[in-house]
């Protein structure tokens, strides 16, 4: 069997607020295999956002060890983290975070700019990804000319463009209506079936149920970790 894509061992994250020390993460251990499709759920304050920031290379753990795609996150400096975010990760945000003055295809090109890929190749790959998420007709539209669902698809294309090992989605359906949210989840399911590893961070158990596995968090600890029913999972497809 392959080594898991994500291997977290006893992650601890401490925040000092005034005199008080908050355990945002209090010894979190789990692993996610390549090709996995997993949701991390929990109410606000459960530490799921902290975990996501650490998984995303935006933050570093106070203690513990996190290896993603062979890279020990705790040992990376700023430059190493930037390269990690660029090559290993694809970020998807609740509020899409598209740059308003750029067209869809230019937005998708953005991470490839930081990878130093030349303009021609970039354009080609960006268009390819937009076609993949079903926006082949809207390459030169600006974000304001697109619906919320379409904007999130552009963001997904952007996350995919760097051919990352892991898609990390933070409440990806939070800003969308139920129907559009279902469509986005269906797209995730499709991408997963093509072999993309996806981790969704959400407070919504309905969203979590659409994935293959749910990790539940509370007060900085994992309180539950179970496979979702295949039937329920399929029901959303």
């Amino acid at each position, binding site marked *: 069997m392959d080594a898991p894509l994500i291997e977290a061992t006893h992650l601890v994250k401490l925040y000092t607020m005034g005199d008080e020390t908050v355990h945002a993460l209090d010894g979190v251990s789990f692993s996610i295999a390549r090709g996995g499709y997993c949701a991390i759920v929990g109410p606000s304050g459960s530490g799921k956002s902290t975990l996501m920031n650490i998984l995303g290379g*935006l933050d570093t753990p106070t203690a513990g060890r996190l290896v993603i795609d062979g890279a020990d996150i705790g040992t990376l400096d700023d430059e190493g983290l930037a390269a990690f975010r*660029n090559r290993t990760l694809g970020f998807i*945000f609740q509020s899409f975070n598209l*740059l308003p*003055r750029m067209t869809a295809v230019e937005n998708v090109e953005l991470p490839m*700019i*930081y990878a*130093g890929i030349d303009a021609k190749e970039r354009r080609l790959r960006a268009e390819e990804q937009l076609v993949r998420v079903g926006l082949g007709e809207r390459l030169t539209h600006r974000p304001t000319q697109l619906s919320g669902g379409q904007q999130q698809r552009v963001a997904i294309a952007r996350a995919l463009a760097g051919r990352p090992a892991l898609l990390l989605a933070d409440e990806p359906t939070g800003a969308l209506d139920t129907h559009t949210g279902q469509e986005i989840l269906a797209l995730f399911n499709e991408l997963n079936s093509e072999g993309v590893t996806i981790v969704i961070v959400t407070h919504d158990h309905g969203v979590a149920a659409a994935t293959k596995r749910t990790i539940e968090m509370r007060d900085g600890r994992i309180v539950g970790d179970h496979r979702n029913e295949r039937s329920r999972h399929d029901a959303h497809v």
Partner: protein
Amino acid sequence: MMRTSDLVGSAARALRSNPMRSALTALGVIIGVASVVAMVSLGAGAQAQVERSIASLGSNLLIVVPGAPRGQGGVRGQAGGGGGWDSLTLDDAEAIAAQVEGVMVVAPSQRSRAQVIANGLNWNPEIQGVTPAYLTARDWEIAEGRFFDETEERQARRVVVLGATVVEQLFPNVNPIGETLRINGGAFEVIGVLASKGQTGFQDQDDIVLAPLTTVKRRISGRSRRADTVSQISVKAVSEDVLRQVEEDVTTLLRQRHRTREGEDDFTVQNLSSITETAQQTTQVFTYLLGGISAVSLLVGGIGIMNIMLVSVTERTREIGLRKALGARQADILHQFGLEAVALSVAGGVIGLLLGVLGAWLMTSLFNLPLVIAPQNAIMAIAFSGLVGVLFGAYPAWRAAKLDPIEALRRE
């Protein structure tokens, strides 16, 4: 690692996205660079002008005039105190020629002003009674005809050589050689025309009539003055190296002859090279002063850039957070914002340079000065505006690069 072409592209996009703001921000630098360039060019023009006008009086030249010296730089004092206006004589000139070493020529002259009439036109030029040596002493060239010789000078012939302006005024359509003109009722034959020295400053050197010294003494300004006094003695040294020595020797000799002591002189020896130096220093100081004042406006322009860049960083906090999440390194963000500031200020610098040259051209043609644009000044202006961009863009760019991506993404 971001490609340079992408870096330039993203800076250009950011500046184009808010053209009004970019233009107004660059305006500060435009005004700063334009005024520096214009002022420095104006100063250089004034300096060139001063040098040219003094050099055109004659090189390696000392001018001895009657009257006590006052102040520095050869400014001539009032008559009285040390002596009157008629303290210099032809004998003084001869003594200088005979006794001072390193002298090429000595040219005594008598200045006068009188109405000159020819062709039914009249004009009021400066009339100088001179010896043939004057031509050499003052670096005059003959453009047409000839100059009078020693014999004609001694015999007080009624001949004149005209400056270009006088020819223009009195003989607009006629060749003046051989023509007759009248000065104080007497008839004079025009035998030559001087090559033009051009308008220098506010004085037209070509507005001159040269006549034999004896002729002027007897027939034009003779009146009540002593027969052997002169209004000026021009002393030309053989080279610039001996000029100081000649100046001292002339002074010593004249003190002996006039029986005066230092501080009681009834004559003044003006050294044109020291006047040139003083004038150069003065214009140099003015150039620096004007340039310095202008540099302050460039500084203000730089602060304007910093201000706008800080606003821009705040406005684009989310964008910066996103770029970092997508893999931008701190260096990438630093370069992106730094380049925007530098692009703004260099664009301002180039436009400012063009406007400054235009302004310098307008001012120099207004004041009738030569236009001096040193290429190294132009390069300096561009380089300096680039430096302003780097200096004032560095802090906002550093702030952007150091933003915490988690905080930045959370910002609405």
